[in-house]
């Protein structure tokens, strides 16, 4: 989230789209109702009328997979009706910047300029600004202060040498009239997204679209805030990351980023998934979202730093975070002389190493062994039929979990011939979250230490202890028997033990960062260095565990703080846990005030320039003062307001035109889901050209003639993920005992199905049976005059449980992925339905 949970109460309008927050994040309703009590409107957009819709002021139906059509229409509506927040857009976004004339979008082909059909990807070189001037990296003095420039740190001893990038300053047109300026390009791009077209594609009636757009766009008024709540309904598509980009564009147009009651807010799907992505467990990121290097592109540290460091902006500090990270991973072994052990870290190659890619690698015989750590792909994986088959190809499988899951039992699942399977399966019982200590990071970036209430039962161990034992044993074996690249493991810096036992507080210290010479915790990341004198595992967390008076005591660390002070009564709670980065609760908060530093809404003041100094309720997200290097409490000077509201961008502006980072286009564009019964009406390309695994044999794409019905998957309040935890607790199994598929009255009648009948839902990937729940909460969509039926099912059931078993929904979902993240398209695919 750019904002956080408590902040929802500050909104004037709340849009839940691709999120069923009342069911899946029940506590959020308390904040939503607080906002509504003050007159806010709560809008729910969903293919199905959910328990969230039941509480909404406005409900709008939308065919699964058509969110960009919706957002495109909303953007056109905002622009045409002059509802965008003008000063905000002009001063804080790249609306005025001029784009390279070679950039094009061709409606007929549905492609942006630069598409390479052979390589199956875009060359992104055209997606750039016109350059007004090139400012080389300053290694000397800052002309304004006469002191060494902030970027001069690269000249110090110990800092790796790399080709210093220059900053390309864009040409701008402050009048926003030049046809090549971002503003005009954006207007042109979304011209096609008329209410009529959007209604045809989404199946949402025009009047309803206009009602939603009008209500939400009212938050474009400078003193108003609108917040968007989203979840997997947005992300789990072959253009999921573009869905998120689209939300960002809408919110920047309305001036809703960086303000209380605004933002784009992902309601994450697991208690600590935020922590897991922050800490870099995804294949394509290092901790703190630094990119994992690709071997071909970044063969050495110099190449990585030159390629990843921008020429301007706060991210010019990247080398400090990289070197500090390497120092934490390899400790004393990492020196200036060996590029801080950069060569030791695994690099990406041509193989896609995301979840879908891993199972493809198993099918190709590349991956022979697998650890499923708190994960149950037998039920949760896309095309789980295929994933379970692949498990049978493995030599060995280790599964770590609290209960015996379907993955642990894949070899004896119903209908499986166990005798034919040679996989050796190891089950490691794990501790539950109250049987171990450590942090959990919520969707709002709040990192909170949790404590151990009791010992885990039997032989169950906490995950870190398992990891620690594994590391020690592997180290022993590698040192005794050598093998491929043994030093990658044997040289790891692993000081995470106290009295022979694994000690997670030591990991926490490593993540916070410390000075290498004396081991003292650093206050926060501005103190990190690129010369090897500091180490830091997760730079965005730096500051969360920084109290040197009690390094072994989490209760005395910022992450352990549980005080309820709330300056400004905005729900910021700065002393309740630690919010990364540097305890900032609302990121981009410079944008909460105008160019002179006056808050758009004084009642929601986050930062304010009084004329001589800054006042603040939240930690400012910009350089606002110069303090005495010896005593941070002494302010030497205050930095007057400027227009740099997005400090991580090299141009300091919010990107309406996304010129770097997105593989499939600088503007979100509507494409149909990989499997769809509808021809794309917005452009000549059916599906996202950048999607991944579209050609994998395992996918078995559905022919809409055989499978004309759109299907989606979702979750329920009563169950948790693949159901291991909840279907094994009788109270919860009883609360929602049976797997079902929700079907409209119209489709049920067509198929001769009555409520409660056993039905079969199937496609070429799988065939499953469950009860039919016939309900008016699903209605057929009118897509350009054609009736398109949609059904949906929860994915909480499987065959492993003592109390409630049921069909596995993911046997039908497609293992195709988003162009940027390869997240599977769980939310829209094709099936057929018949009475069983």
């Amino acid at each position: 989230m750019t904002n956080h949970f408590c902040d929802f109460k500050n909104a004037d309008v709340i849009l839940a789209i691709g999120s069923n927050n009342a069911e899946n994040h029940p506590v959020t309703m308390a904040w939503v109702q607080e906002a509504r009590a003050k007159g806010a409107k709560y809008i729910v957009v969903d293919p199905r009328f959910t328990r969230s819709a039941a509480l909404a002021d406005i409900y709008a139906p939308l065919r699964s997979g058509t969110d960009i059509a919706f957002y495109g229409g909303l953007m056109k509506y905002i622009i045409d009706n002059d509802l965008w927040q003008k000063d905000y857009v002009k001063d804080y976004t790249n609306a005025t910047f001029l784009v390279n004339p070679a950039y094009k979008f061709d409606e007929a082909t549905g492609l942006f300029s630069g598409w390479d059909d052979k390589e199956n990807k875009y060359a992104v070189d055209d997606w750039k600004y016109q350059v007004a001037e090139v400012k080389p990296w300053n290694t000397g003095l800052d002309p304004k202060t006469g002191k060494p420039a902030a970027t001069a740190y690269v000249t110090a001893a110990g800092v790796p040498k790399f080709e210093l990038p220059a900053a390309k300053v864009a040409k701008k047109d402050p009048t926003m009239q030049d046809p090549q300026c971002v503003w005009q390009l954006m207007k042109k791009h979304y011209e096609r997204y008329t209410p009529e077209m959007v209604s045809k594609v989404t199946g949402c009636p025009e009047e309803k679209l206009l009602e939603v757009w009008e209500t939400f766009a009212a938050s474009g008024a400078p003193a108003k805030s609108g917040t968007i709540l989203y979840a997997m309904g947005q992300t789990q598509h072959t253009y999921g990351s573009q869905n998120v980009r689209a939300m960002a564009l809408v919110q920047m147009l309305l001036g809703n980023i960086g303000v209380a009651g605004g933002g784009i807010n992902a309601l994450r799907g697991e208690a600590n998934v935020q922590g897991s992505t922050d800490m870099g467990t995804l294949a394509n990121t290092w901790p703190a979202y630094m990119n994992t290097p690709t071997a071909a592109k970044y063969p050495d540290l110099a190449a990585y730093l030159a390629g990843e460091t921008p020429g301007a902006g706060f991210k010019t500090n990247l080398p400090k975070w990289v070197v500090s990270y390497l120092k934490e991973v390899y400790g004393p072994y990492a020196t200036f002389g060996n590029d801080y052990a950069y060569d030791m870290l695994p690099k990406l190659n041509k193989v896609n190493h995301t979840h879908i890619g891993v199972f493809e690698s198993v099918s190709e015989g590349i991956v022979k062994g697998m650890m499923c750590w708190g994960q149950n792909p037998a039920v949760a994986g896309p095309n789980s039929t295929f994933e379970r088959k692949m498990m049978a190809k493995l030599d060995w499988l280790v599964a770590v979990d609290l209960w015996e899951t379907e993955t642990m039992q894949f070899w004896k699942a119903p209908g499986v011939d166990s005798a034919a399977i040679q996989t050796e399966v190891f089950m490691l019982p794990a501790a539950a979250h109250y049987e171990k200590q450590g942090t959990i990071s919520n969707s709002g970036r709040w990192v909170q230490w949790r404590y151990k209430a009791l010992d885990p039962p039997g032989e169950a161990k906490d995950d870190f202890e398992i990891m620690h034992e594994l590391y020690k044993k592997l180290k022993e074996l590698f040192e005794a028997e050598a093998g491929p690249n043994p030093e990658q493991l044997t040289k790891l810096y692993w000081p995470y033990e106290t009295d022979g036992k694994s000690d997670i507080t030591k990991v926490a210290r490593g993540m916070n960062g410390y000075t290498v010479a004396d081991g003292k915790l650093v206050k926060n990341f501005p103190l990190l260095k690129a010369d090897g004198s500091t180490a830091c595992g997760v730079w965005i967390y730096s500051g969360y565990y920084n109290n040197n008076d009690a390094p072994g005591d989490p209760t005395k660390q910022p992450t352990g703080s549980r005080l309820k002070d709330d300056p400004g009564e905005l729900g910021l709670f700065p002393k309740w846990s630690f919010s990364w980065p540097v305890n900032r609760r609302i990121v981009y908060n410079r944008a909460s005030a105008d160019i002179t530093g006056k808050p758009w809404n004084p009642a929601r003041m986050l930062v304010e320039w009084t004329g001589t100094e800054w006042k603040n309720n939240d930690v400012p997200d910009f350089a606002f003062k110069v303090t005495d290097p010896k005593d941070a409490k002494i302010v030497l000077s205050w930095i007057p307001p400027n227009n740099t509201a997005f400090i991580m961008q090299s141009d300091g502006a919010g990107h309406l035109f996304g010129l770097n980072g997105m593989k499939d286009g600088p503007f979100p564009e509507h494409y149909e889901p990989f499997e769809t019964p509808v021809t794309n009406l917005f452009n000549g390309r059916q599906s996202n050209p950048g999607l991944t695994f579209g050609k994998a044999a395992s996918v078995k794409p559905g022919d809409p003639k055989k499978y004309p019905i759109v299907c989606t998957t979702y979750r329920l309040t009563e169950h948790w993920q693949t159901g291991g935890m909840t279907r094994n607790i009788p109270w919860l199994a009883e609360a929602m005992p049976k797997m079902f598929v929700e079907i409209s009255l119209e489709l049920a009648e067509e198929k001769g199905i009555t409520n409660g009948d056993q039905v079969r839902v199937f496609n070429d990937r799988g065939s499953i049976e469950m009860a039919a729940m016939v309900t008016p909460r699903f209605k057929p969509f009118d897509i350009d005059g054609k009736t398109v039926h949609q059904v949906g099912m929860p994915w909480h059931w499987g065959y492993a449980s003592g109390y409630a078993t049921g069909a596995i929904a993911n046997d039908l979902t497609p293992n195709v992925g988003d162009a940027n993240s390869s997240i599977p398209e769980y939310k829209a695919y094709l099936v057929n339905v018949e009475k069983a």
Partner: protein
Amino acid sequence: MAENAILYDSSKCSACKGCSVQCKQWNMLPSSLVKDGYEFTGSYQSMSDLNGDTRLLIEFREEDTTSGIEWAFSRRACFHCTNAACAEACPVGAISKLDDGTVNLDRAKCVGCKYCNAACPFGVPKFRGELGVSNKCTLCNDRTARGLLPACVKTCPAHALSYGPRADMIAAGKKRVEDLQAEGFDKAELYGESEMGGMHSLFVAKFGLDAHGLVRDPKAPDSIALWHLLKPLTGLGVAAVFGGLGISFLTGIGYKRDASNVGASKSEEEGQ
């Protein structure tokens, strides 16, 4: 002692069932351990009705209207009536009214006659077969006696449940109905202010009583008036039976052992 009440606001309820699960946990009530032995109700509702092990149930009623779906959620549990029919019907005083308005069912005193099951106009008390007793919400009086909120109220994440002095809950409920009507929910009503003499579990019905399955003008069954007669009569009758048996035993009236035919016949046979 002031009377307290629960106020349930169906317009804030997200039907998460946290309350019903928490009720089971606090009161140590079981759920079936039979694998896949649960019923499928055809909706999000967990089971068709309260039962011997379930004191609190969230009900789901959906209606498709021209202005959209009306999905009415209802918290079904004991209403803790002032004129509690169950308390009147109970022949052994297992159901009693506490000072704060709670209608308590003391399992230890229950003899399993199920008169309360029949007497309740809402069909709330249910029989727990294996234990031979009836089961219903006790308004967590073991918690409220210690100044704690009832378990369901405490756990509700959507703040749809509140608990406090009955007068305050009624005022809050009325205000909520006013606000709902201003929002366009013209059928919104407050249930429990005067029904059954006034109930201690109040209900803001967003779509009106009928949509939420609430009984309009509930009344105890007419037979309960008879039970007023029957209870002392039963008591008298029971006493009379025991008394009569006792007298006949002591006096031997109507039972002449030496006039037993069985013994005589046998000896006659043997004597042949």
